[in-house]
């Protein structure tokens, strides 16, 4: 699938934003959020900013962005529509929580609004994952690992971002470093399982089933000898994107190291060597992780093969 920048940016940015909201909500529920006005304002601005920038960027790739509001209407059948509705609803507890947290006079509502925000944030992440999970035409997306990947990677990036901000403002969220490390490990595990799955399996469809020849007597081999068009058409540009295997392997290595391993090492070493300056390692950890996760998300699109390519000479999809 064509890795459109707007969609990659949307899924990574909004994933991190909702992950931050979930992390903050969790700490608020345990009454473990420090009352530092700059930390709270910055955290909320970054979290809601990431979510909003993501949503806006996803409307940029529309043919008619001015009609985007129509996308809220078909939540009965469409995961894309459900995502829009969920994203809109999530603003309500998130904004209420933000106000309650920023104004210390409203401390106790924050303790209730925080945990309330978690299902909204994770729910929106779930709807995003389901947009991909529900597409039967793309084997790399229509499988059981896609939802876990989104549900772990969102909170993982969010937790690391909150950790980096807390380090920047010199406040402490108890166990957040350990928690982030655990999420980074979990993220790597689900992503690894996902990659193993897509490497070892492919769609049930073949060129023979695509052309309807699979049931006609002895096995046949269907080879594309001529395309209907000499230049790439929309279908090939959108669905026929293929990344060379050797590049994919290299990029996976980059995603693994930058997205998971290096941030985990930096964060855990800052915990183990309790020098206050070392907490600043969380900041480069967050930056590197962001780059790694963008590479990971690029691969999620670039390595996804659509069954329509079977009509154009692909042997499997």
């Amino acid at each position, binding site marked *: 699938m064509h890795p459109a920048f707007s969609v990659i940016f949307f899924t990574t940015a909004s994933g991190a934003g909702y992950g931050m909201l979930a992390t903050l909500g969790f700490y608020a529920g345990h009454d473990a959020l420090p009352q530092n006005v700059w930390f709270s304002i910055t955290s909320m601005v970054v979290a809601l900013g990431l979510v909003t920038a993501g949503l806006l960027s996803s409307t940029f790739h529309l*043919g008619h962005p001015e*009609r985007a509001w129509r996308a809220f*209407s078909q939540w009965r059948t469409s995961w894309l529509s459900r995502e829009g509705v969920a994203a809109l609803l999530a603003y309500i507890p998130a904004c209420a929580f933000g106000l309650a947290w920023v104004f210390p006079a409203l401390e106790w509502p924050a303790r209730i609004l925080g945990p309330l925000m978690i299902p909204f944030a994770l729910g929106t992440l779930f709807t995003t994952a389901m947009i991909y999970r529900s597409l039967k035409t793309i084997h790399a997306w229509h499988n059981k690992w896609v939802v876990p990947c989104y549900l772990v990677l969102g909170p993982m990036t969010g937790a690391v971002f909150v950790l980096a901000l807390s380090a920047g403002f010199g406040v402490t969220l108890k166990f957040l470093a350990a928690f982030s490390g655990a999420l980074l490990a979990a993220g790597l595990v689900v992503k690894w399982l996902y990659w193993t799955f897509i490497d070892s399996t492919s769609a049930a469809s073949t060129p023979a089933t695509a*052309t309807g020849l699979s049931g*006609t*007597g002895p096995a046949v081999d269907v080879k594309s000898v001529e395309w209907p068009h000499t230049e790439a*058409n929309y*279908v090939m540009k*959108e669905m026929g994107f293929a990344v060379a295997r050797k590049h994919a392997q290299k990029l996976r290595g980059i995603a693994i190291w930058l997205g998971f391993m290096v941030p985990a090492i930096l964060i855990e070493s800052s915990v183990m060597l309790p020098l206050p300056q070392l907490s600043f390692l969380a900041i480069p950890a967050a930056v590197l992780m962001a780059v790694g996760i963008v590479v990971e998300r690029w691969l999620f699109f670039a390595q996804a093969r659509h069954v329509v390519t079977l*009509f154009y000479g692909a042997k499997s999809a």
Partner: protein
Amino acid sequence: MTSLPDKTDKKLGLVIDLDTCVGCQACVTNCKEWNTGGHMAPLTDLNAYAAEADGVWFNRVHTYEVTGSSACGASTSRTMHFPRSCLHCEKPDCVTVCPTGASYKRTSDGIVLVNEDLCIGCKLCSWACPYGAREFDVFEGVMKKCTLCVDRIYNENLPEEDRVPACVATCPTGARHFGDLGDPNSAVSKLVAERGGVDLMPEMGYAPTNKYLPPRPRKDTATSVPAKELTPVAATGFLGWVDKLLSR
């Protein structure tokens, strides 16, 4: 509404004969000609006369080499031309994924259409179609697809015989048939039954309405037809007299 009808009154669709299709692209051309002025008009072309020409088409004809061998091991390889367009599926995810309600399936005849005034151009429906039937119009910013020529098949301004999709009307080899596949007694349903019509990618579960008739099996031996024996002719009249004279 993007919810699918449980049942449609009719199942209008096409039956495409892969045994007969010669890959002449006439259906492709007539489809473009009709539809660029029809319901989904225009079918925008970009750089039409330059390198990297691109444009919206509802119908595309591929060519394949199908290799196989018969029971006795002889090659049954052949060239197969393969027209590909919207199959007006009974369970199409292209409709259910649409966030705006622009994509819909009609309860009356099962035709799958896009309402261009509602479409936001998110392209998700084209991702959901296994058959590559939907093409995005970059210029108009909306999704386009085959309409089964809704603006021909019910068009009372056209003579009766022209009320079929443009591709069917033009096919010089008669490889394309149009009708109600929901009616077991229709000509198309009978043709499908007789020739063993198949679904494309049945494993996807979209239950396409359009059916394809696979190429007839190739014979690997010729039937032997002995020539008739010559029989003597009894000549009469003038020729009889010549015969008699010469036989002396």
